[in-house]
């Protein structure tokens, strides 16, 4: 696996990245994919909730809130 790949929860505020893979084949993974988080899609981090979790992301032109336990299932590649 590419060493530049990181988890989505490591993305800082305002940063953008490209989704590489959704890890797992359980409900969480299916839900994430159904919501449009699919490989090669760009995603950016909008902001965190006051207590640090969950986090708001922008993907496919809409906003989605993901908990850390969900966003660390998303492998991303930072845009150069």
């Amino acid at each position, binding site marked *: 696996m590419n060493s530049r790949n990181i988890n989505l929860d490591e993305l800082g505020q305002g940063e953008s990245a490209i989704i590489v893979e959704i890890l797992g084949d359980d*409900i969480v993974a299916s839900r994430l*994919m159904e919501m449009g988080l699919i490989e090669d899609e760009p995603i950016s981090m909008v902001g965190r909730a006051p*207590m640090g979790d969950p986090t*708001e992301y922008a993907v496919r032109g809409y906003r989605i*809130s993901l908990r850390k336990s969900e966003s660390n299932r998303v492998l991303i590649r930072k845009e150069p």
Partner: protein
Amino acid sequence: MVHTPQAAKKTRTVALIGNPNTGKSSLFNALCGMNARVGNYPGVTVEQKVGRLTGTSECIEVIDLPGTYSLAARSADEAVAVNVLTGDLPQQAKPEVAIVILDASNVERNLYLFSQIYELGLPVIVVLNMWDRIQSEGLSVDASLLSERLGVPVVCTSANRRHGIDELKRVIQQSLQSQAALPYPEQLARAKFPAEFHDEVKSLSQWLESKGRKSSTYQVDRLLIDSDGHFQKAICQSGLPEIAIRIDEARVRLQKAGCKVPMFETKSRYAWVRSLITGAVVRVESRSASASDRIDRWLTHRWVGMLFFVLIMFLVFQSITLFAKFPQNGIEWLQSQASNVVERVLGPGALRSLIVDGILAGVGGVIVFLPQIAILFFFIAVLEDCGYMARAAFVMDKLMTTVGLSGKSFLPLMSSFACAVPGIMATRTIENRKDRMVTLLIAPLMSCSARLPVYILMVSAFVPATTYAGGWISLQGMVLMFMQSLGALIAIPVAWILKKFFFPGEPATFLMELHSYKWPSMMVIYQRVWERVVAFVMRAGTLIFCTSILVWAAAYFPGDHQSLDESMKTLEELHSARSKWIDKQLPTSSDDARLSIETALSENQAAIDSTIQRVNEQRSALIRSSFLGIAGSWIEPFVKPLGWDWKIGVAVIASFPAREVIIATLGTIYSLGSDQDEMSEGLQDQMKLAEWPDGRPVFSLATALSIMVFFALCAQCSATLMTIRRETNSWRWPVFSFVYMTTLAYIGAWLTYQCFAFWS
């Protein structure tokens, strides 16, 4: 609930389906008016909403299906949506047309669900709702191009402004009249699935058919894609467990061939969607979206966001307590006026007692919650419609995960501090069933406003008025605060246990869409409030009616009320004689006459006093001999360890339908008439004088605390239990709540009494 066979011949059925938060319920209301039938689907806790299309001579029924992101059928809601669309739900006609509602500002993600529905073999109409928002979102959507590419009619609407509704009605009628051409298999998104998958579907279909279970292509697709999904469970349970092995083998083969399950499905579908919308949905640079982002930066800011949240909650709950007071007083006034009228028309007796003490008191006691419910749902509707509700869940999520719930549980629990009934109704905003059930079951533990009078009575009578820190902190206030928060503290381990043992499973996902902020629509707010108010009055009201009659009967029978009725009659005659004397007093001028009237008045007063005393003694004797009183002496050995005598036992039993009743019941039992409130000196004094047969006082600090702890934890509210019954569509959960809370209350009260009795 479901239409009769002869009506079915004429009735046409269409189904409305879409993602959550697409304005589906506003569209439903716009199509059907406010006369929807709301119920539950047989056997599941999923709300069924059916309405009749207005403005047409034909009888066209619209089924409002639960909002869902996918037909992958993992939750009860999704399973119902699929089963209705495929006609597999018993007692529910298969819809002839599926109306798929899309959020016009998020066509791409919404078309994912469309791609699945399109494969069910039903004619489809696409509705692009919230059309008024696309401009402010900086989007340009070409509806006719979309219609051409999708091969289905596309209608643009703004349901909350009632725009495009007539056009949609016309298209629905048209689709029902003309047999719409169904898509060719090549047109569907599943045509893009890998060839290996199509082969596996074919062989599994053949195998199922050989076992006598012919399944649609759609069902076989879902069997192979959804690991441990709804269809697989259904087939396994119906006596074909081998299916699981077949599916696992097929998945392994697919995996080896490089076809990743379930990833290939979403990938193929989104690729299909994108090929359809390219050029038809264009994002021009957006301005308002970034304004919404700027608002969001503050409202979800580390400090400002928290402060704003606390302020909003403060405003909501202050309004509930402040504004509800006036209409509540009005309702109570109406209730007392109605009682007066009945008392004037009917003489004392069983019928009058049934109407006044049973029906009017019972039903009035429920209707009194109506203003609170209307106000709470007004705020919920405003916060939901403007987009803040999702942010509130976003802000509170982390805190709520510590007890295994999500941010969405916060508001229902918070509103339960005012009253559990609207709180439980507000759990509908929680989509996850397990979270919703846990929230609903712990909501009655929050200290509602009906517990406060009980605490105030006990605290002011039996907790010493000691103050600390120069009079700033009072012991009474501290005890009051502790009692108010006790339920919430106990709710933490209860939620944890419920989550662990009763609703186990994988942690709930919290994928939540955060819409841009917008101005709330008055129409939507009015509809939401109206819907909830009607539902409350109709359901809880009718059941409460029966409960209050039952409790009244238990307290009234089998005693002989003849002598009490006679005393009551005497009392009323004395009262009317008194008012006659007072009327005469004014025009009379001579001193002699005045003196004689004053003598008569004081004689009358003495007679009234002695009659009241007789009435109260008779009442208390009747209560002792009523079924309730018999139950009281029967339970005395059980309540003695809590430090209670039979009178407290009876008062507590009588307060199971509504906990605040205890004050009136204690008043009756302690021979003071039933017009007692928590601050009445008389009741407090009488309670202080009460003694055990051996001369020890009944009420000590330990007893008062044990009563308060019992009330803090017990499910003494039939309105709450009936609401749980309605919301879960099962008697199991109200019985469960009742048993667990009563057990908790008993243990809590026992521990409290034993500790304090030992200590003091």
